[in-house]
């Protein structure tokens, strides 16, 4: 269910919105859509297994095409485009996805997502293997699990402390957490090795593959990016996700209905933290190092820029935003005088935000509406407005 449809449902009286969804508790026979009258399920009568019906319902030709393109991409593109452009976009997109989830579905704008990623990154450097003597050298899978756990715990604590704030105050308090963590790692030498951080933090060799080679690393990031994307898509349709969107749109009403708002928001922080943590581990493996410069305020803002640039309305926005961001970061220097390339980046960001209220997704919507107007001066398009 898209956010706008949800909003409409909320405004048009409380018509048991959960019923419009393929909720898992539904008995197989009764079509969930019939109650809401919004979606009709053409596969309701067939006897195919439920997961197959789920796929039929949600997959279209363009999904398959994009998936095939993503699979074929590293075999067509140069190693540079596979590693530095695509894999980096996927990793940053995954971190931005955690913010898109929090912001788009929970109404929480948290600037601490890069710091959560940084906690995971530093944890894997400290517990795993690096060229710095501080590292404990645990087996990689233990280090990864511990890193994810610590980062999730930190995200939950940040959520717990900032959950009672709204809007700009949430931004401020999460920014404060991020800056505090930056200065902690910058000035602490016994644990975080200060300004120099950790070098040579590489992914392990598993199944005889060097996972830092461009193609394996691309597929590693692709797997986790898709896992994160699908997890968000799935989660926002569960009762929890619906309730979270309810909390976003009208917390007082949800509270009156008996929902625990604080618990929902903290849980959202925890899930967002998990996404950011996975992204953080991948980011350290991508860079092969982590220093305070990898998690400074600039990067906290960059994650927000990526999320806003792509559009917060749909999880794909985070990845669209990160692709544009990485392409600009990499190639802007070729477009203009080398001392001034940050100007190009700024102008493009400004232009996108200026001409669209919802980043690239908003632009795409506008474009599609206009195309529809041109092809058929039809009733359908006017009905939409």
């Amino acid at each position, binding site marked *: 269910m898209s956010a706008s449809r949800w909003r409409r449902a909320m405004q048009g009286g409380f018509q048991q919105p959960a019923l419009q969804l393929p909720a898992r508790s539904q008995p197989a026979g009764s079509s969930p859509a019939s109650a809401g009258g919004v979606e009709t399920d053409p596969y309701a009568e067939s006897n195919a297994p439920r997961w197959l019906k789920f796929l039929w319902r949600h997959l279209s030709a363009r999904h398959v095409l994009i998936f095939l393109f993503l699979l074929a991409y590293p075999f067509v593109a140069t190693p*540079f485009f596979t590693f*530095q452009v695509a894999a*980096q976009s996927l990793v940053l997109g995954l971190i931005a996805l955690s913010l898109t989830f929090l912001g788009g579905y929970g109404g929480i704008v948290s600037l601490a997502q890069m710091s959560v990623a940084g906690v995971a990154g530093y944890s894997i450097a400290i517990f795993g293997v690096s060229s710095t003597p501080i590292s404990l050298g645990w087996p990689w899978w233990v280090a990864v699990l511990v890193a994810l756990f610590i980062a999730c715990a930190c995200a939950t604590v940040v959520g717990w402390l900032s959950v009672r704030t709204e809007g700009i105050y949430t931004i401020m308090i999460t920014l404060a957490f991020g800056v505090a963590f930056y200065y902690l790692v910058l000035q602490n030498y016994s644990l975080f090795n200060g300004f120099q951080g950790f070098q040579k933090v590489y992914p392990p060799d598993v199944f005889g593959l060097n996972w830092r080679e461009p193609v394996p690393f691309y597929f590693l990031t692709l797997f986790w990016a898709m896992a994160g994307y699908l997890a968000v898509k799935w989660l926002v349709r569960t009762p929890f996700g619906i309730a979270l969107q309810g909390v976003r749109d009208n917390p007082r009403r949800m509270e009156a209905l008996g929902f625990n708002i604080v618990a929902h928001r903290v849980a959202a922080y925890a899930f967002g933290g998990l996404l950011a943590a996975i992204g953080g581990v991948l980011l350290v493996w991508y860079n092969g*190092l982590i220093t305070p*410069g990898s998690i400074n305020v600039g990067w906290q803002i960059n994650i927000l820029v990526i999320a806003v640039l792509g559009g917060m309305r749909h999880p794909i926005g985070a990845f669209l935003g990160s692709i544009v961001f990485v392409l600009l970061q*990499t190639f802007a220097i070729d477009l203009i005088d080398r*001392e001034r390339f940050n100007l190009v980046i700024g102008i493009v960001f400004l232009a996108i935000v200026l001409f669209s209220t919802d980043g690239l997704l908003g632009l795409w919507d506008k474009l599609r509406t206009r195309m529809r107007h041109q092809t058929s001066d039809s009733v359908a398009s006017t009905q939409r407005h």
Partner: protein
Amino acid sequence: METKRTWIRSVTGAAVVAALTSMAWAQQAPVKIGVLATLEGPFAAGGADGMRGAELAIRERGGVVAGRKIEMIKASSNANPDVAVNAVRKLVEQDKVDIVVGPLSGGEGIAVKDYSKTQPNMTFINGGSGAQATTLVNPSTNFFRFNTEGAQWMVGLGQAAINKGYKRVMVIAEDYAFPYSQVQGFMTEFCKLGGRVPVKAWVPLGGKDYSSVIARIPKDVDALLVVLGGADAVNFLNQYEASGGDKPMMGGSITVSQDVLNYRGKRRDSLVGTISAGPYADSFDGADWKAFVSAYQKSFPVSSGGYPSPSLFALVYYTNMKAALDALDAVKGDLAGGQAKYRDALSKLELKMPTGTVRLDSNRQAIGTTFVTEVVKDAQGALTTRVLRKVDNVDQMLGLKKEEFQIGSRDIPNCP
């Protein structure tokens, strides 16, 4: 009609393309040299001057080496190692450069050295970075450094401090590898000669507030050794003056560079008498040096953003770029066979520099000259430096035996 015009256009287009390609084939393909410096972040000013230094070395040869045109491709970082590696990777894998010159700062240097191991057929030559570990710990066979590093730059300052009568010195330095090296270069000599360093204050890079450090300065020290760079040094000077400080200062190699000497604040005059050491001196009167300075001034007049006299970063980038070009000349522009011949020529190069001759040790690290200098005021009232002493053949071991040498850190060396 329409189709005919299109056809004519495409034929013309094809002809032009064919002509251009054949012209390109007539000459030899240009040598692509990627140059990485910090055009953003805390060292942006130094990075821009580094670029000028590299450009100067190319202009000296008229943009041609061994009959091949030199194409310089600039890349930028912000002193963060991950950004530096991304930029170098783009130069190597996307822009397909033949040689990389860079990066500028210590942490970046180590990261780029690590990256160079994944590109064994490429040659990487340092830009300005001066971390000791780059060539001492896991050195890479295709990473060369023709500039001396942070610890080498401070050799001679310990003796000069003793000569000035400084017995107890407090160290105020930024908290990362390069200042550790600088402090080690000073202390190794200073402690051996009987000096004492009771307090070392490590401040974060890019910090704006030095009041807590200033409060910690003991009453009984004779002088301060300040190893801060660019804007940070200027900040410290302001705050130390405002708090009424009057201890004489000694500077690190990037503290008393043109960045600070061009500073127009009140503390300016109290800088006179500051001793420091570094790989060059404005006032060195060697003929080659004077020629170098005037070439720099002619190429980059102050009106177009250049400094009155080349900064440290201009010199080190010039040094490394000149080494890259001299070795190219020695192999007649032949980079075939994974550049093995070229790297061999680099290792054997005796680089004639404006400051003296530079050669490489077995880790491909420069053995070169260091100058001990003192800040003086010239006739026009501009601050400049005066050479107290020129130390030749400074190597990375600082006069210690290989067994007793340890890389500098917060606690090494130590003589409270």
